[in-house]
Each structure stands twice: as structure tokens, then as C-alpha cells.
């Protein structure tokens, strides 16, 4: 886990990690969230609506922004303030996602950084975009 202090961070700094979405992740997310919508849980339902298979919960993908900020940039000194996200394209089980963030703004007075972040799949398509605001403690 990274442990950047506010002073260590500069505009343009980046963080990045990769995750492959598993069936178990969908099961766990369904149990935690209670979202039993069949688009995420039934192959038959998803295919009938034109998708190749079940669509991964958008909020499961967005939860990876928590990891980006809380583990990578700034890491353990993070206090997440705001995530503004857009779900651009569907994600499926087996997709390998790369989560990338870049610092676009630093506010000294309130010790807050703003990240522009994207999630890309294995074919380099942007499946999700976000603006993340995080306080940097310590």
C-alpha cells in the first residue's frame, strides 16, 4: 500500500492497478448490496436484452475507485470525499480491467486532491470514467 503525504503529491502524478473480474466477485457484490436485478444475475435475461452475458454491476466497477484512492494514490492517508462516475460500456465476467488515475488538482488549504480516473478493459476500451476528490490525512 502506498502512503503518500499531501506534500509528496504533485499534479500529474499517476496510480494504476489491474483486476480480472470473477464470478465470485459478482456473487459477493450481490450479497453485500442486495441488488438481485437479473441483468447481473441471469445469463438468459442478459442475453435476451442483447448482452453477450451477465453485465457486471456498475457499482462494483466503481468500487475499484475506492481501491485506487485508498491503496494507490494517495494510499493509506486517503479520506474519500466524492466520486462522480459514468458507466460508459458494459463489463463482463472475465474482463481484465485497468484502473488508472492522474492528479489534476491539489488544494493546499483543505488538503484535497482531485483525480481524473478511467477504467479500461483488456481491449483498451474505456468502460468507466470518474472524477475523484480525496482528502490526504497526515
Amino acid at each position, binding site marked *: 500500500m502506498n502512503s503518500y503525504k499531501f506534500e509528496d503529491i504533485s499534479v500529474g502524478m499517476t496510480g494504476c492497478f489491474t483486476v480480472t473480474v470473477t464470478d465470485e466477485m459478482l456473487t459477493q457484490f450481490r450479497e453485500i448490496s442486495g441488488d438481485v436485478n437479473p441483468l447481473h444475475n441471469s445469463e438468459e435475461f442478459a442475453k435476451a436484452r442483447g448482452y453477450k452475458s451477465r453485465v457486471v454491476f456498475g457499482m462494483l466497477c466503481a468500487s475499484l475507485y475506492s481501491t485506487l484512492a485508498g491503496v494507490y494514490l494517495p494510499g493509506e492517508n486517503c479520506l474519500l470525499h466524492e466520486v462522480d462516475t459514468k458507466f460508459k460500456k458494459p463489463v463482463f465476467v472475465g474482463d481484465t480491467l485497468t484502473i488508472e488515475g492522474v492528479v489534476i488538482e491539489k*488544494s493546499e488549504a483543505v488538503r484535497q486532491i482531485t483525480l481524473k480516473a478511467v477504467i479500461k478493459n483488456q481491449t483498451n476500451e474505456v468502460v468507466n470514467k470518474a472524477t475523484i476528490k480525496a482528502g490526504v490525512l497526515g
Partner: protein
Amino acid sequence: MNRAEILSQVTEILRGIFDDEELEVTDATTAADVEDWDSLEQINILVAMEKQFHVKFSVGDVEGLKDVGEMIDLIASKMA
């Protein structure tokens, strides 16, 4: 920019942040007067002020602000 113009722009920023076009703001307005004005919104307000007025605050500048009037004084001093 004079004090009244700063107050007018500060009012517009606060109305936008709190999504309340009726919000009346004076020098005496404090966080206690606006229901949703908590510590997280305080951060959003200060960042919005920095952008709107093209100024930069330090921690020391903002930690003792008591009301909107002091915020306007701070902005005016930074713009001077």
C-alpha cells in the same frame, strides 16, 4: 472587484453548492445558518472560491474563518 461584487459571486457559489436559488447570504451568514453546510461542503466551498476568484488559500488562511464576511475579506486581500 469591490466587496459587493465578491458577495454577489459568493452567494451564487453557495446557491449552486447547496442547490438553493433562494438562499440569502450576508456578511453575517455562518455554516450554522445553512442546514447542509458541514465540513465536507466547507471543503467544496473553499475550492470553488479558489477557482472563481483565481486565488490560493493556505491552511492558516481558512481555519479561523467565522462567517461569510471574513471569507470575503480573505478573498479581497488575496486579490489585492
